[in-house]
């Protein structure tokens, strides 16, 4: 993939789009004019973080974006998915990751990280595991419930993507205050991801096998799991999964997934697979659907130096 072309695409289309899509409250919705949400605000802020260091205009945009994010944090340290919701969810991981990438080690971030550490999935509680022994459904979708990750919403099951986001957030923190909690949860979360890998590599939402039929991997969950597990790039499961992604990249049909794939290949120091489409080709073919998350991912994919910092200490190749 031509990185200059991607940078040009980000500078010409995506960053101006993101600046213009900012709501009057400072946040971003998923589309221009949509209500501000924590998730879309995080994506936009991640995309604008680098340029905010160089441009006063973008610095102002960025600072205005931080304000609603800070004010929407709930008393327990979590963030809700939408305004009005009184319970936090997986978005907390994204908020903490974004804020940590911005060098924020404030009490607010620490409270968010503590919430993540305290948020256990309900499917793998000791009581549930005991009951599962007697369930007639126990062999339908066999997974190891000794491993525990994170759920999308509190009180539900572990899934691949929220577990990956939580691992990214916990890795981004440099604070020693959470160290004991963090270490154990990261180990359990990583073990869960490996347990949920599809046979042959790659991940879907979190069902590697149902009724004896192997699950098909999906691009998005595979990318997020690989990014969360990138500390062991030569581990067998990571290698087979990045190889699966290389094969799948040729058939990617959306610029959002393509941009994320580029980020993942950079994190694993892999070259762009031959035959894979370009971001500009896909944008031209599909039409730009004015999606804030997609625009942000394209911008991030064009800036691997920044990504190296956003992803923490692990190296991200250009």
């Amino acid at each position, binding site marked *: 993939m031509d990185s200059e072309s991607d940078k040009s695409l980000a500078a010409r289309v995506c960053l101006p789009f993101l600046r213009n899509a900012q709501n009057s409250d400072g946040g971003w919705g998923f589309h221009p004019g949509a209500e501000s949400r924590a998730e*879309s605000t995080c994506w936009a802020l991640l995309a604008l973080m680098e340029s905010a260091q160089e441009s006063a205009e973008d610095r102002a945009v960025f600072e205005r974006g931080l304000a609603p994010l800070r004010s929407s944090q709930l008393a327990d340290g979590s963030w809700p*998915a939408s305004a009005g919701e009184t319970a936090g969810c997986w978005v907390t991981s994204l908020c903490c990751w974004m804020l940590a990438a911005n060098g924020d080690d404030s009490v607010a971030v620490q409270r968010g990280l503590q919430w993540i550490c305290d948020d256990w999935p309900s499917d793998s509680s000791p009581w549930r595991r005991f009951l599962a022994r007697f369930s007639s459904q126990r062999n339908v979708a066999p997974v190891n419930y000794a491993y525990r990750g994170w*759920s999308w919403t509190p009180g539900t099951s572990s899934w691949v993507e929220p577990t990956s986001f939580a691992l990214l957030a916990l890795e981004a923190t440099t604070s020693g205050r959470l160290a004991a909690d963090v270490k154990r949860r990261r180990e359990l979360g990583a073990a869960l991801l490996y347990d949920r890998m599809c046979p042959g590599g790659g991940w879907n939402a979190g069902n590697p096998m149902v009724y004896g039929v192997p699950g098909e991997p999906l691009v998005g969950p595979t990318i997020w799991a690989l990014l969360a597990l990138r500390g062991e790039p030569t581990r067998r499961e990571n290698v087979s999964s990045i190889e699966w992604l290389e094969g799948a990249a040729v058939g990617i049909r959306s610029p959002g997934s393509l941009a994320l794939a580029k980020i993942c290949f950079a994190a694993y120091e892999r070259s762009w697979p031959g035959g894979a489409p370009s971001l500009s080709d896909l944008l031209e073919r599909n039409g730009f659907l004015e999606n804030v998350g997609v625009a942000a991912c394209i911008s991030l994919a064009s800036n691997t130096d920044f990504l190296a910092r956003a992803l923490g200490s692990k190296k991200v190749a250009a």
Partner: protein
Amino acid sequence: MATTMRDQKLIPSFQRPLSKVVIRRVGSYEQDLLSVMVESLAPFELRVKGKSVLLKPNLVSLDPKGLINTHPVVIAAARECFLRMGAAQVLVGDGPALDRDTEAIVESIRLREYLGALGGTFVDLNIDDVQRVALPTHASRLKELYLPKSCMGVDFLVSMPKLKTHHWVGVTLSMKNMFGIVPGGCYGWPKNILHWAGIDRAILDLNAAARPDFAIVDGIVGMEGNGPIQGRSKASGVLVFGNDPVAVDATCCRVMGLRPEGVTYLARAGTMLGHLQADKIQQVGEKIEDVRQPFEVLPEFQRLIAS
């Protein structure tokens, strides 16, 4: 004053008038589906002139072979039909359950080729603006959900599933299809909160809240066995239309050679949301026995097979 079905009070099934279901034999997606739609919708005398319509197909996953999702040619024909009936706006929207990349899914079924540019026509319900909805029924423990404004505010909501078996609840038809309106942006991929609430019960609460006005089932090619994703294709050769999703789903079960009374959520829906019993459903078009194509089901659902 109530303006949409979603604002109106629920009426117990025994107080409801007869429901109407049309079955049409359609051999392939190459047929003139627009004509089929026009003829099939005529008996319902739908009042959609000047109204907003949302078509909610079943878009689950990447589907280059066209086995999993509602076929785009059916969606396009329905959209054109409602526009010709005078609808002011006909949007197509869904929130796929397992994959955040909705754009990739709609591209995999080539929806853009049939609808034209998707901007302004297609709504990703997973990331739509949401509103808090207090659930009018309490079949599950859920008390409220945040649901897409594009869905809850529309004048006329059409559920457009594919005719499929389902490995957790037996069948997935127009009622189960409503899971797709629950926004992943709030509840994740999958929308696991619904599973924890009990899938059968959550289907009831969700349909009581969303109240789809109409259903069009793509049964030209369905799925049997380990549906809704990993099953086998089943050429069933029908489109099924109706103004009562319960009646439509019950009819579809009968077409599939299954007993709707054995499907837990349908049995309960038959008391509160619509008609399950055949004698409460005015059948138009093909007779069920003439189009019946027995679907294979997983061993757990052998009890559904009609004797």
